[in-house]
């Protein structure tokens, strides 16, 4: 075996190792790299210290950075979310973990009336470098532990709202969020947090070093010519599966991962939809008064009335997530429901 071969082998091993990394380990790595760079970063949340997070996204951080910088909080979200505001005002850069996004109803106050508005209310004099890290999405946990709610945060001015779909983006966007001087709501998906790198269809590979990705740029994750499908978070994987299925039926689907809801990259979606003439927005959040209408209408506003042949949206049809899997499958967009909707669109005018 030649020397270069051995080197390649070692590189491959390393890549293989990294492909075996659970997504939470990738996230913990991103946070650790930033905490090393910047001593102002402080993490506060339930079970993020000794336990390393209920999904493991902060594993190892407390051992490494101590109990003052990685703080196990009591169940007092109003208290420690407001604490984040105070930490930011004191010159720190807090990462506040709200374990599940569903719990936001006890602490939205500090998020939307304080963190999100203080930069404006202070006339730009007070920055709010806070990351609100939280997990959303359906994994069979019923109405109070299954929501996405990015549409809610997006409606309230002052937040950036990020929801990545693959390990590479989680790492780069978490770093970007921690370096941002604005409050960022960073929404992970519970189903993705249960996966390893190699389980991801798209961009499973993650460099070991620190890097950032710009917040607000969508990615075309599969090119196609018949229908434009825009979505984000765990649904990207379902969309890719559905697109593959439709390819077998002769329908070419372009899949766009929005990556963030605020800022929303309308330009990338509009450019694609202008080509395909058909736009499907798929959203695991609730259908009405949320992402799907805003994005669809922004694309229509950008392209003009009549520019598109069809638009459609597939989202949770304004119903709490039911406990029974038989019902959950009927209301949460999955590959089968997406494929069905794409098929209907392809058949349409």
């Amino acid at each position, binding site marked *: 075996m030649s020397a270069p071969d051995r080197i390649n082998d070692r590189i491959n091993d390393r890549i293989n190792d990294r492909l075996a990394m659970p997504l939470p380990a990738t996230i913990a790595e991103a946070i650790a790299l930033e905490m090393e760079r910047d001593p102002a970063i402080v993490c506060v949340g339930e*079970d993020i210290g000794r336990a390393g997070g209920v999904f493991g996204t902060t594993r190892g951080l407390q051992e490494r950075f101590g109990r003052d910088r990685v703080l*196990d909080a009591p169940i007092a979200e109003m208290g420690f979310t407001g604490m984040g505001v105070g930490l930011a005002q004191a010159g720190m850069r807090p990462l506040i973990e709200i374990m599940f996004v569903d719990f936001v109803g006890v602490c939205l106050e500090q998020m939307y009336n304080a963190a999100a508005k203080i930069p404006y209310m202070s006339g730009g004099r007070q920055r709010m470098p806070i990351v609100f890290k939280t997990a959303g999405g359906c994994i069979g946990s019923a*109405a*109070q532990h299954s929501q996405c709610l990015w549409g809610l945060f997006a409606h309230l001015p002052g937040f950036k709202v990020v929801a990545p779909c693959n390990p590479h983006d989680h790492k780069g966007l978490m770093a970007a969020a921690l370096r941002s001087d604005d409050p960022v709501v960073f929404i992970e998906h519970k189903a993705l947090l249960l996966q390893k790198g190699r389980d991801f269809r798209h961009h499973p590979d993650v460099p070991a070093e620190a890097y950032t990705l710009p917040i607000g740029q969508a990615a075309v994750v599969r090119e196609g010519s018949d229908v434009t499908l825009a979505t984000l978070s765990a649904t990207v994987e379902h969309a890719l599966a559905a697109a593959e299925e439709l390819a077998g039926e002769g329908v070419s689907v372009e899949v766009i991962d929005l990556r963030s809801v605020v800022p929303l990259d309308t330009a990338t979606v509009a450019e694609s939809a202008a080509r395909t003439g058909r736009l499907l927005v798929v959203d695991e959040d609730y259908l009405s008064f949320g992402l799907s209408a805003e994005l669809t209408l922004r694309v229509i506003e950008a392209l003009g009335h009549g520019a598109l042949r069809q638009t459609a949206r597939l989202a949770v*049809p304004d119903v709490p997530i*039911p406990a029974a899997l038989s019902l959950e499958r*009927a209301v949460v967009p999955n590959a089968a429901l997406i494929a069905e909707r794409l098929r209907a669109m392809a058949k349409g005018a």
Partner: protein
Amino acid sequence: MSDTVQQTRFRRMLAMRAFDEACLDALRRKAIHGELHVGLGQEAIGAGMAEALRPEDAVVSTHRNHFHALAKGVDRRALLAEICEREGGLCRGRGGHMHPFDPDTNFSATGIVGASLPVALGYAHAFAMRGESAVAVGVTGDGGSHTGGFHEAMVMAAARKLPMVVLVENNALAISVQFSEVSPTDTVAERAAAYGARGLHVDGTDVDAVADSFATAMAHARDGCGPVIVEATCHRFRGHFEGDPEGYRPRAERQRLRDSFDPITLYRARLEAGGADPAALDAIAAEEKAAMKALLAEVLEMDMPDPAEALRYRFTEEAPA
């Protein structure tokens, strides 16, 4: 021949344990999805509270609610069927194990920590204003005692001397977070003074002690003397939820808790020391186990909800009276 008080307590604990063991069985058979929180190790609290609860009383519980539901008299078949997400469940499979609602017994729960007490406050006000003698019981864990909802509900109930009992199941852990590390006081009960309320502290692994304390608390509230905090210390024998890797405590520690503080083992020893016939106790255990086994088999035969009905029950017009 009917059970003695002691036998009833013993049977209740065994029924509760058998219930949660049936849930574990159902989980293994993939009949339950999402996080399941069982109460193994905390049976003495559920069994101890059952006696003093009247049908008209209300109980508002937490994510770890099975024993409180059984104590309140929720039909265990309907409860298990709901936990197994069946159309024939208490909530037609819509609620699942964290969200059982039973208007017939005034029982409900919530998966949001600290959110139970304000709801109990509402029952308490309704009972008081209607001149009824019912009491509202709000259950929380030690973790829930730090929430704003705990404080706000106590402030309102105490200022109005409402018939509310706050049952704090202090198992010393909120998932991984130790009570001793985040609580400014050694007990939750001592915080009752901040509300001019009564606080009781009881060993929650001793069913007799729980039954006494809980009865005292209920009587106090029922008599119009205002809210009571009953803190029952106990131990959580399993992970926070099924599947919890429990990286935050050594396996040996868990085993030690099981070995030292099993409320059923402890009670059995007391009953035997008092002269109870071991065979009779074995019979009770076997009966309860068999009953739950049969019940689970029955439940697993029940239908899943029809996907075509997934949108029903959002609004009144979708739910026939």
